[in-house]
């Protein structure tokens, strides 16, 4: 009985996620004409790339999509470069102010982006970074760092320090011990942090809208044109926004599952 309920729950949750994606995909691959039909067919009866190619052909969509990918990947790299060492330090070392530091990390998320964005826009305007992908990358990195640090520190805590010590006893330098012993075990968690960061950056729209005018990311671009665009454009835009995140998660999927038979801690 419990097993049955569990499976029902799994199916329900899967449907909850999958049905909207399916409907958006369906609409994105239907012709403009069929979108106005009623009732809408639930199976792809007239497959057409007209809607999607129309969307991709509209002004600013391709450049903003490239911007989004660039910002997303740069944010992942930057957040990991800063966040992984910080997470390691939090996991391994006792230092003065460790508790307040952890609290402070979370506190940065307590401020709404709207509040942060205006002063940020001012700073970026004076420093010449305004309306560049760097500005958006920096903002997204700042937004992603707390979770990156907390996720990776939880991952490093799970690898016992004795393993690193053992590696050193048996001839590894501290760096070798980290690369050969800790990193392979931490990869699933780091991948999770990367996925989280990329999806966050890909979806973030408010900060990106405020900090850019011409160098829009895709969500900011879609948002700014949403209100006066046709229905087909909206569906195609929605689909284009969902797909890259799904692809990224699919690529990272194998790192998300622990490779040695135990589940991700």
């Amino acid at each position, binding site marked *: 009985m419990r097993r049955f309920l569990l499976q029902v729950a799994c199916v329900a949750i899967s449907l909850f996620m999958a049905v909207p994606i399916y409907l958006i995909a369906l609409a994105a691959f239907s012709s403009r004409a069929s979108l106005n039909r009623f009732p809408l067919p639930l199976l792809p009866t007239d497959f057409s790339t007209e809607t999607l190619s129309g969307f991709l052909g509209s002004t600013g969509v391709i450049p903003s999509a490239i911007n989004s990918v660039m910002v997303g990947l740069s944010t992942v790299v930057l957040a990991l470069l800063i966040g992984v060492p910080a997470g390691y330090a939090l996991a391994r070392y006792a230092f003065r102010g460790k508790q307040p530091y952890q609290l402070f990390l979370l506190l940065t998320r307590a401020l709404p982006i709207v509040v942060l964005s205006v002063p940020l826009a001012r700073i970026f305007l004076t420093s010449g970074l305004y309306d560049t992908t760097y500005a958006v990358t920096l903002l997204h990195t700042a937004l992603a760092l707390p979770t990156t640090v907390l996720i990776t520190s939880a991952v490093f805590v799970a690898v016992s320090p004795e*393993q690193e010590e053992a590696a050193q006893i048996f001839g590894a330098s501290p760096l070798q011990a980290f690369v050969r012993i800790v990193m392979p075990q931490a990869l699933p968690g780091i991948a999770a942090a990367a996925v989280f960061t990329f999806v966050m950056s890909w979806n973030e729209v408010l900060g990106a809208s405020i900090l850019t005018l011409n160098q829009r990311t895709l969500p900011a671009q879609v948002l700014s044109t949403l209100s006066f665009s046709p229905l087909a454009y909206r569906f195609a835009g929605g689909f284009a926004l969902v797909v890259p995140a799904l692809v990224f998660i699919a690529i990272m999927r194998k790192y998300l599952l622990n490779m*040695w038979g*135990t589940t991700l801690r």
Partner: protein
Amino acid sequence: MSRIVLRNLVKTYPGGDRRATDDVCLEVAEGEFVVLVGPSGCGKTTLLRMVAGLERPDGGTVHIGDRDVTSVSARDRRVSMVFQSYAIFPHMTVRQNIGFGLAMRGVPRDLVARRVADAAALLDLSDYLDRYPSQLSGGQRQRVAVARAIVVDAGVLLMDEPLSNLDALLRLQFRAELKRIVHQIGTTTLYVTHDQAEAMSLGDRIAVMRDGRIAQIGAPLEVYDRPSDRFVGGFLGAPPMNFFPATVADGPRLSVGSLSFAAPPSLEALAGQQVLVGVRAEKLEVSSTQGDSFQPATVEVVEPTGASVLLTVTFGGHELKVQAPPTFATQPGETVWLRIDPASLRFFDPETSLALEIPQFA
């Protein structure tokens, strides 16, 4: 093989209010098996970690062989270690785990393969070389940790409570096996445990530690038989040594409550003084009938252990543990008779708890 010489090692952990090791000196001869034993927090693991190079001493020196390694990093000390948590690498196969030390030292591949195979054979792991640690039992993981440590052929083997995570039966089995293996490879070994039985059974010498100092060091039976203070006598042995205060009377005799029995002649010099008497449970002869020089005691608890019967008795107002033969029949409340061989008695200063220097063994 190398000897280990520790001189005046002092270590205080940051934030600690007392020294983890307090001016410890210790020499482990080439090929010797020395066990550090003591209650938790006595500094035994800290001492081991300073030998390993995982902890820097605040003062003192560590020599391995003829080399001062006090400021040498762990990887350059040529030591090998078995950790309490095993610390084997979960993302590597048993083969990779055992060969890790050799691979890191740049030993050629074919030689690594051969030595890994030898070590695996020695520890019954040959069939598991391609498995991951998560597919092994606790005992097998422990074997991997030991194989990884002995395969590198280091001059010094360090073991930090390697058996403490095994269940009781497995621990007993592996203890004997470990002794055989270490004897076979003949490495200088420093072994940490809180289990006195393990210490007694494994060590060429055992060092009993307390509060960051070595309370006594010597051959297991010597330390067991002649503890240097009350703590050592109470720590080693199950049951621990019995202690009771007594007054030395002329004769010399010892008075405990209303009882009086013969003392070794050398105690004459302490006539009229209070002493703390120590005696092992198995040194007390017990009888159900009164005889010459037998003293009465009241049985409180009877615990049959199979090999013997452990009695808790009241003797002159003090509780004693007595080891009786397995066939000895008695019940709580009954009176039994104890004969105390004067030669089996040990004497301690009631103030300092230190063993009294009495020329009784001359």
